[in-house]
Structure formats: structure tokens, C-alpha cells
């Protein structure tokens, strides 16, 4: 019995698709369950938070990153190591303020939206990738860093780029450390 020759599909790519497609099915289900975009966004953020708190362990085990000494170092690691490891992309990092606690990740490519052409009708405030914000927030909290993470720009909403803003919230004790130095 001769086997007809056929090109083997790229199995690794398809394995990535599993996550992307599952995420899409999840968002579609949430849009069915919740009428308001804010509710879907909040749900995705909460879910992402739960994932982030666990993902950070996996990340630290795989990446062996050393201790970070600044918010900018941490943001660089998120962009260059974590994003690369889990999503295969490297967003660029910019610092948005002089006190160096507000940063932006600019996503040139976003694998999560690979199969999304546009937001569904009537869902113009949907932050499709809000899971990512929750993941970053949850992961940072597990290493004792409080931060606000939101989407500042979104290509799906018509902006020119997709931009995630990370604002590290200063803790009162930190100011004490600074004075001692």
C-alpha cells in the first residue's frame, strides 16, 4: 500500500494556534454571556490575573533571570524574555515619564489577533487582548510589584499600533530606601 506523499503541516505552528484559537473561542463565549464590553474586559483581566500568578513560576523556572534593580530592567525582561518565550514576539519598550515608573510595550505583531479581522459589531470598546494585561499584572504582583496595566492603544480599535501601558505603583517603603542611599 503506497502512501501518497503530502507535505507535513507545520506542527509547531499549529500547536501555537491551539492557544490562539482557544482564546478566540473564549472571547466569543464571553461576548455571548455579557452584554457590556466593560464586563468582558474585566472578566478577561481577572482571568489573566489568575494565569499570571501561576505563569510567573513557570517563567522564573525556565528563564533563570537574575534579580532586577529597576522598573526599566523588569519591563525589558517582560518584553524581551517573557513575551518571546510565550508568544514568540518581542515588543519594544519605551519609558513614558521622567520618574521612570511608566512604561509602554509596543506590539508590532500580536499573535493573539492572528485570526481576528475586526471587532464584532457593537463591540467597539472590547479590549480583545485584555488577558495579557491581567497576566502581566498577576505576574508582577507575585514578585511583590504592584502595577496598573492597561491597553493604551489597540490596532483592532483603529489605532496605528497596539500599546500596553505598565505603571509601577510606588510603595511607601521604597521612598525610605531611596533616602538611605
Amino acid at each position: 500500500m503506497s502512501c501518497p506523499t503530502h507535505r507535513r503541516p507545520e506542527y509547531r505552528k499549529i500547536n501555537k494556534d491551539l492557544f490562539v484559537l482557544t482564546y478566540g473561542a473564549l472571547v466569543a463565549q464571553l461576548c455571548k454571556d455579557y452584554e457590556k464590553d466593560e464586563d468582558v474586559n474585566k472578566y478577561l483581566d481577572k482571568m489573566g490575573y489568575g494565569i499570571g500568578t501561576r505563569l510567573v513560576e513557570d517563567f522564573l523556572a525556565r528563564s533563570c533571570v537574575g534579580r532586577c534593580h529597576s522598573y526599566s530592567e523588569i519591563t525589558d525582561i517582560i518584553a524581551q524574555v517573557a513575551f518571546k518565550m510565550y508568544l514568540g514576539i518581542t515588543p519594544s519598550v519605551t519609558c513614558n515619564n521622567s520618574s521612570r515608573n511608566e512604561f509602554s510595550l509596543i506590539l508590532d505583531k500580536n499573535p493573539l489577533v492572528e485570526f481576528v479581522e475586526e471587532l464584532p459589531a457593537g463591540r467597539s470598546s472590547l479590549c480583545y487582548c485584555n488577558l495579557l494585561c491581567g497576566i502581566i499584572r498577576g505576574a508582577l504582583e507575585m514578585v511583590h510589584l504592584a502595577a496598573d496595566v492597561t491597553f493604551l492603544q489597540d490596532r483592532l480599535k483603529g489605532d496605528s499600533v497596539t500599546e500596553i501601558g505598565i505603571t509601577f505603583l510606588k510603595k511607601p517603603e521604597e521612598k525610605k530606601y531611596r533616602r538611605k542611599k
Partner: protein
Amino acid sequence: MADEALFLLLHNEMVSGVYKSAEQGEVENGRCITKLENMGFRVGQGLIERFTKDTARFKDELDIMKFICKDFWTTVFKKQIDNLRTNHQGIYVLQDNKFRLLTQMSAGKQYLEHASKYLAFTCGLIRGGLSNLGIKSIVTAEVSSMPACKFQGQRVGNWISPANIH
């Protein structure tokens, strides 16, 4: 691969999310399982499309099931199905002795009552994959001792092979 961690965590959050936001009576009447199964169905359809874009046509139903057990299962769950049984009349039993979505949960009978929640998505995945290959089916799962589990697929109607489409 790192991607697997992401999918596993997402899947677990989805299961707990569905059950947390379930309304009164939804857990009992199986609405949560249905939601998860439906999500799996969508994903299965999409995955199998990308998979079989360039593969040769399947000669028969058994060929399709072997594909699911080998290529499909390996790509999605990093291993093949350990045992495939059939009665050659449309019923197939796929046995996975170390099912990826259950290995972290327990080894044995602990948490057995929760296992079905974590299998619903995969049942849908199989059903969706088969559906886009022309096989309409009902897929159920059973676990007697984690992490081994069996997926049973029952064909509904006749297989619409490409040769039969006029």
C-alpha cells in the same frame, strides 16, 4: 514547550471561570459542561482545518480516526493516543493513559468527581475536528483513575466522504 504552559493555564482558568460564574441550577443541568464543550468544538474545527490544508484525502473513517490518534493528538497533547478500539460500526474508543490535562491534577482517584469538567473541552475538540472531516459524532469521556481517560466517539449518521459528494 512554553506554549503548552500557557494553554494549560488558560484551559484551567476557563474551567474554573465557567463554574464560578454559573447561575443557580446551571451546574446541575450540565450547562457548564456544554459551554466548555462548545468552545472546544469551535477550536477543533479551526485546528483541523489548518492541519489538513495540504494533507492527502482520507481513504476511510478509520484513516481519519488514526489521524486523530496520531498526528492530531501528538500536536495538541504531545503524545499519541495509547489505544484505539472500534466496533467497525461507528463507535471508537480512544484511550490516553497519561492525559496531559489531568496529569497535574492527581494520580489515582483523588478529585475524580471533578475530572469531567476538565475533559469537556477536549471532547468538543474531537467532535469539532471530526465534524470538519465529515463525521458527525457524539463524544463523551470517562475516567476511572487519573491521569488515564477514555474518549468515546459515536458516529451519527453516515460519513460523508469526498467521493460521495456529487
